[in-house]
């Protein structure tokens, strides 16, 4: 046997690759970005300390920033509950004994794997005045708007597009549904519970961990919407789909105001952090963990 000291420390060798890249590409930049957010760095020259000026400017003298926050809030407020309800509904539908279940599951799930520039391209086409979406609406007698050129309808268009990607959420729910012990339903039946009461008193409570998880993930995701905002609407028309991350991108990498963009990054980071911590705080009141004491 080798020396004990070697044994004690050799484990670190296994995690060394992560540790090195972490220090180099994550921790270093993380600290640097706090510093940069208090400077006027512009990618050339040296950063100059400006104190809290960037933060003051963000909230007092940057209409686009305020607009981007409002836009992102709007998106979050509709997208998150919308996608959760729809995914829940689809998961319930798929969790029945039904012929061809894998086919339906694939149809609902596939769009969430292909998400990216390619499907954003596709949606530009679908959202044209004579595109598929409006043809569909035409079938039920609705005269669809010109989604992408209207500052009223561009955001709903992106939200509509987001519902196409309910797959991941739906699969999480489906897995959770299949993990509910059958005997709970049987016990409820014995007690005379009908379909709706079983749903409300058995299914929903047992699903709360999954509902909580997807709520956290979806809210974090909403604050980081970027690809569709750049490709489909490019922030427009008239900044109606200017998301906060798109604003950061333009400020930092098109106008090269990197000190200022770092301040945006930090505000965004704090917003995400606050939302997540809040959710974990509230979670204790409504999320049911079976055998929670073991955790």
């Amino acid at each position, binding site marked *: 046997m080798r020396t004990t000291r070697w044994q004690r*420390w*050799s*484990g*670190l060798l*296994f995690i060394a*690759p*992560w*540790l*090195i*890249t*972490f220090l180099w*590409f994550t921790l*270093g*930049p*993380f600290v640097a*970005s706090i510093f940069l957010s208090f400077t006027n760095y512009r990618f050339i020259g040296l950063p100059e300390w400006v104190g809290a000026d960037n933060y003051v400017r963000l909230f007092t003298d940057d209409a686009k920033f305020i607009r981007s926050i409002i836009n992102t809030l709007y998106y979050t407020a509709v997208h998150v509950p919308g996608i959760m309800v729809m995914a829940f509904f*689809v998961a319930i*539908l*798929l*969790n*029945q*004994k*039904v012929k061809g279940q894998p086919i*339906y599951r694939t*149809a*609902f799930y*596939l769009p969430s794997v*292909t998400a*990216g*520039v*390619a*499907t954003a*391209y*596709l949606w530009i*086409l*679908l959202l044209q005045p*004579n595109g*598929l979406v409006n043809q*569909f609406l035409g079938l039920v007698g609705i005269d669809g708007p010109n989604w992408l050129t209207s500052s009223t309808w561009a955001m709903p268009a992106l939200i509509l597009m987001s519902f*196409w990607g309910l797959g991941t959420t739906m699969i*999480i729910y*489906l*897995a*959770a549904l299949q*993990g*509910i012990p*059958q005997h709970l*339903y049987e016990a409820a039946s014995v007690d005379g519970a009908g*379909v709706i009461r079983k*749903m409300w008193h058995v299914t929903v409570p047992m699903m709360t*961990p999954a509902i909580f998880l997807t709520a956290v993930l979806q809210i*974090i995701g909403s604050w980081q919407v*970027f*690809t569709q905002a750049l490709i489909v609407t490019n922030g427009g028309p008239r900044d109606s789909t200017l998301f906060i991350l798109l604003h950061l991108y333009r400020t930092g*990498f098109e106008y090269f105001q*990197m000190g200022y963009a*770092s301040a945006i*990054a930090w505000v*965004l*980071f704090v917003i995400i952090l606050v939302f997540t911590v809040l959710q974990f705080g509230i979670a204790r009141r409504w999320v049911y963990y079976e055998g929670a004491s073991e955790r």
Partner: protein
Amino acid sequence: MTARTVDSGLPSAALASGGRTIRSRRVQALQLLLRAVYYLILIGGSVMYAIPFFWMIRASLMSIDMFYEVPQPLFPDPPAWNNYTDVWQVGPVLWWITNSTIVSFIGVTVGTFISALVAFGFARLRFPGNRALFLLVISTMMLPQHVTIIPQVILFRELNWLDTLLPLIVPLLGGAPFYIFLLRQFFLTLPLELDEAAAIDGASRMRVFWTIVMPLSKPAIATVAVFSFISHWNDFFFPLIVLQSSERLTLAVGMRWLQAGQYEAQRLHLQMAIALIAVAPVVILFFLAQKHFIRGIALTGIKG
């Protein structure tokens, strides 16, 4: 994941086969109706979700003139197969595919291997600071990319890495926090006696990792590899920022480059052909490895 009847919703016809009274016939009819509505919603919904893909194929086979016909032809006749040969002329598409392939390949192979190695260290080995460092892994998992991106870009400039694939590749050599986390959780489920027995036989830790833990973890490794491929292939924000020259781009950024060009309206059909080329590997992989996707999601979602 198999379909299972759950006693929560729709009545199955089998249950209602007993009675012959009028009342039970009514119940039967109602159940049949419910069943029909159920299938209608399910099939209708699936079709709605699948149609955009067919629309993509259709548009990629339309000539540019067909886009302006009123009404647009439902099926492009004749199909403009030449879109798929013309598409290579609009930009260095072959380079984009090559670059995306390089990054995705290294991410899937080296990235997954190192994530597993690090996860093994966290799950099976004792060293000072193991717990604290693992907490750090979890926190970086939740750290949004945009917080670090600006200093990273400055760092890459100092290293002369901007406009090369290095910023996409080198950070991979440390593994990815999310996959480290997933694999560690999986490794923890394997009995520790295996390692101890091998150690008594004189096997080194590296040997234990490679000949015992890795083979037993094939399903988890496969899941991570599949997810890693998809995320690298679809990655957009980061490569968009570090890459610039047209022939250095990845496929996703290349598509943006095409769109930002001046002839946008004139080549919708070619854009759709490229989009289809970009989506194809993901769709094919999905069908080949469907169970890994489903399990992976369940793993991340429920066990996490």
